């Protein structure tokens, strides 16, 4: 690969100050929030618009140099790790909200717009963009699209793919294509195919996202339990009663303790589990749902149920949930957050298995879960100064993912496959299933330069790159 030549060309098509290639400048881009694997990129580029993105793709395609689109780098599965000397293409400078149209119920945003920036721009309009991953303060719409991001409110409102109406995408040959937002009668949903493809099927430059009317009212509850099973039983009973809450979030004793240490929300440290349940909708129906939920919590053995009395208290409850993972830093020098999903009714089983796996591998695991979706986030604690601990932590994570597959679930609900889980793809899918995915990706990325070695397991690119740092 004629890398000096490539860098010279990139400096020409962008401008010299928008191409980083000195080793000292590249260190910050060697991983995303999955810090287990780090690799140094060849260069980092900062295009300003789709034409510049296209020019960069074309240069890399000509030389068959892999290219990794990157937003805020908050990904938890190593989707942005620049393996095989990739060029990192930063989308953060495509950061304009181009249109907010309430009548069409859509917003047109550039890929680098942070999720929260869109949320703020919509404040006061009566509408919101529903996907709200915990990373939303930093993570970008483009990154959310790439991983099909979820969040606590997906139980009722769905994940990113349910909220993307159209995309502008630069394909692997440098062509700029647009799919949607006006879907023809019966036209195929190509933008829905690109959502969740982790940069393998094009670099998203713009997205038309659906706006959802704000609920009339919220009711948010915090239920405290003396055991985890009672909490998960509550979740099942609420669903069985025909109620779809906006969110049902579970936190176990370990994470509650960390949250208390960090933020002093006033949780009892004796609690084995906390459920945060939120319902929303027009006021008349909420009264009945609230009564049902309080009754079900009590029947299932909740020790205490607190209803948020005002918006400030609701915000505090959500803050505690969304900052829970950050609080884990107090428990351990290092940790990684796992993401798996099982059928909701298997939640008690998978939580029991998590405890068993932790004990067998002599690691500490604390849990948060989007319980209504059966989506668990075991957080595995380790000390990265001790390679043996890291090995045991990784092994525990692998065992949990295999258990999710065995339960009929999936190795990721919302974080994506990235580099972390690509070897699990062949455990979850048959060879023919992966081949169908591979053939689909080839259409969009004929030279196999877009984030190769991620998401799909059966390629030579990045062989062995999933191994932890030496």
């Amino acid at each position: 690969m004629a890398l000096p030549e490539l860098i010279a060309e990139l400096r020409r098509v962008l401008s010299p100050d928008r191409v980083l290639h000195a080793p000292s400048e590249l260190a910050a881009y060697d991983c995303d929030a999955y810090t287990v694997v780090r690799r140094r990129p060849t260069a980092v580029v900062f295009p300003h618009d789709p034409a510049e993105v296209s020019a960069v793709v074309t240069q890399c395609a000509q030389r068959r140099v892999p290219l990794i689109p990157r937003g805020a780098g908050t990904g938890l599965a190593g989707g942005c790790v620049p393996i095989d000397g990739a060029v990192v293409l930063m989308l953060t400078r495509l950061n304009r909200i181009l249109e907010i149209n309430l009548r069409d119920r859509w917003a047109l945003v550039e890929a680098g717009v942070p999720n929260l920036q869109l949320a703020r721009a919509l404040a006061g309009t009566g509408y919101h963009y529903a996907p709200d991953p915990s990373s939303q303060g930093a993570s970008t719409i483009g990154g959310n699209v790439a991983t099909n991001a979820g969040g606590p409110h997906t139980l009722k409102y769905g994940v990113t793919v349910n909220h993307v109406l159209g995309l502008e995408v630069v394909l692997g040959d440098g062509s700029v294509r647009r799919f949607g937002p006006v879907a023809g009668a019966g036209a195929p949903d190509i933008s829905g195919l690109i959502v969740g493809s982790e940069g393998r099927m094009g670099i998203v430059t713009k997205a038309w996202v659906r706006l959802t009317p704000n609920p009339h009212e919220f009711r948010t509850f915090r239920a405290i339990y003396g055991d985890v099973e009672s909490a998960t039983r509550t979740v099942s009973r609420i669903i069985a009663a025909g109620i779809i809450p906006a969110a049902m979030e579970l936190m176990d004793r370990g994470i509650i303790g960390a949250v208390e240490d960090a933020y002093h929300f006033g949780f009892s440290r004796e609690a084995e589990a906390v459920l945060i349940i939120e319902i929303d909708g027009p006021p008349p129906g909420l009264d009945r749902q609230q009564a049902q939920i309080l009754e079900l919590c009590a029947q299932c053995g909740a020790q205490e149920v607190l209803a948020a009395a005002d918006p400030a208290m609701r915000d505090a409850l959500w803050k505690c949930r969304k900052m829970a993972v950050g609080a884990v830093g107090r428990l351990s020098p290092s940790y990684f957050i796992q993401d798996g999903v099982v059928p909701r009714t298997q939640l008690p089983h998978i939580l029991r298995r998590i405890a068993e796996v932790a004990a067998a591998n002599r690691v500490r695991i604390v849990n948060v879960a989007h319980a209504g979706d059966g989506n668990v986030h075991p957080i595995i604690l380790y000390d990265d100064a001790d390679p043996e601990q890291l090995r045991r932590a990784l092994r525990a994570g692998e065992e949990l993912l295999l258990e999710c597959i065995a339960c009929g679930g999936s190795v990721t609900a919302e974080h994506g496959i990235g580099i972390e889980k690509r070897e699990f793809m062949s455990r979850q899918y048959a060879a023919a299933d992966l081949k169908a995915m591979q053939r689909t990706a080839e259409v969009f990325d004929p030279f196999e330069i877009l984030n190769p070695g991620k998401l799909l397991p059966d390629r030579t690119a990045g062989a062995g790159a999933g191994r932890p740092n030496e």
Partner: protein
Amino acid sequence: MNVADQRPGPKLLATHAPRSVDEVAEIVRCAAERGQAVYPIGAGTQADVGCMPRRPGIGLSLAALDRLIDYQPDDMTITVEAGMKIDRLRRVLAERGQWLPLDFASPGGTVGGALAVGLCGPRRFGFGGWADYVLGLRAVDGQGNEFFSGAKVVKSAAGLNVHRLLIGSLGSLAIIAEATLMVRPRPEMQAGLACRLSDPAAADRLLDALSRSRLTPSAADLYSGALWEQLSGCEPTVGPVLVVGFAGAAADVEWMLDGLRQQWREAGVPFDAIERVEQFDALCEAAAAWPAEVGVAVRPSRLCALMARLGGVMTELPWQARAGDGMLLLRVGPRTPAVWESFVRDRIMAPTAEEPSARVAVIRPPEGSAFAPSEAWGFSEDETVVWTALKEKFDPKAILNPGRFPGAIAAAGAPGASPSDRPATDGPATPGISAATTAGR
């Protein structure tokens, strides 16, 4: 029942009724070896959707693949084989107080057929479309490869959403054999309000007010006076009728109906122009079952402007419009193929071309009309390029439903096929994309 029973179609040399997905794969594999066309058949209730295939081939009936594979009400998921009838699926779900919040064109149709056609009804606005309820699909591609895409749980980010391509593509990429669907609790009540209007401009004002309010309708539709009379059995009316419906707990629905009534009264709608629609569920089903021939998609805010452009067409033809989603559906009615075609081209396509966000799809072209699939489906150039390449990957011999859906132009050797005149931007040669690209424009 097969394609041929519904209307003149391709000559079926034989019709197979496989009893397993393996048998489906085997039949397709044999057909691929011989380059023989394969026409997947559900219940045949929507055999008139799409262009008319001409190549003789074999019919592949999925009627015998009708098993309920797994239903977990507490997980809100169900897995069924493609040949299961919609009305049976609904019965199974109803026994547990659940439903699939989609409008079905025909309860006698099959799950696989409804997915392959992919058309939605009024409640798409509030509940989403097929793609929002399909968690995973098992399918057989044009070379007889069986594959699964998606997951069996309500949330998964593992792998590519290949299954989304199979929804609405009429079995032209792969034949759907099994579907895992997300289901929901059935709402306690569904009801709406209808408002008789003088003209589409009046509808525009009410729709604008609706979008600024905090009401959350399950559907917001316009009907021509004639169609409204036919679907609702109500008194005839000259101008269009706006119908807004809600679903949910009875108290919520009543609360929103009150809010809507007040909104309309404040907008100056006379008291006697508003009527309550109790059988809203049935109305949505009837609207979805109405066999629209032409669909014009447009950004919702431009729907009424589009109707103004279409002028006399809006009074001559029966129509309905999904005002929330931006979709105008029309029936041209019985005319000779040539007259039908020129009406669509001159009176619908030409004025629509002036509206930048709009695109026309010919959903049910009559036998003998000359619309090629890519023109009939109104694909953009970007869609055509990608779809053609996908077709090459999944059905390289172009045996699946050839001629009914876009994509197989090169492989079918259609006259007029030529290499793309749109090279990648200063790019290198593109084996995956441009080699498979043919003009369909």
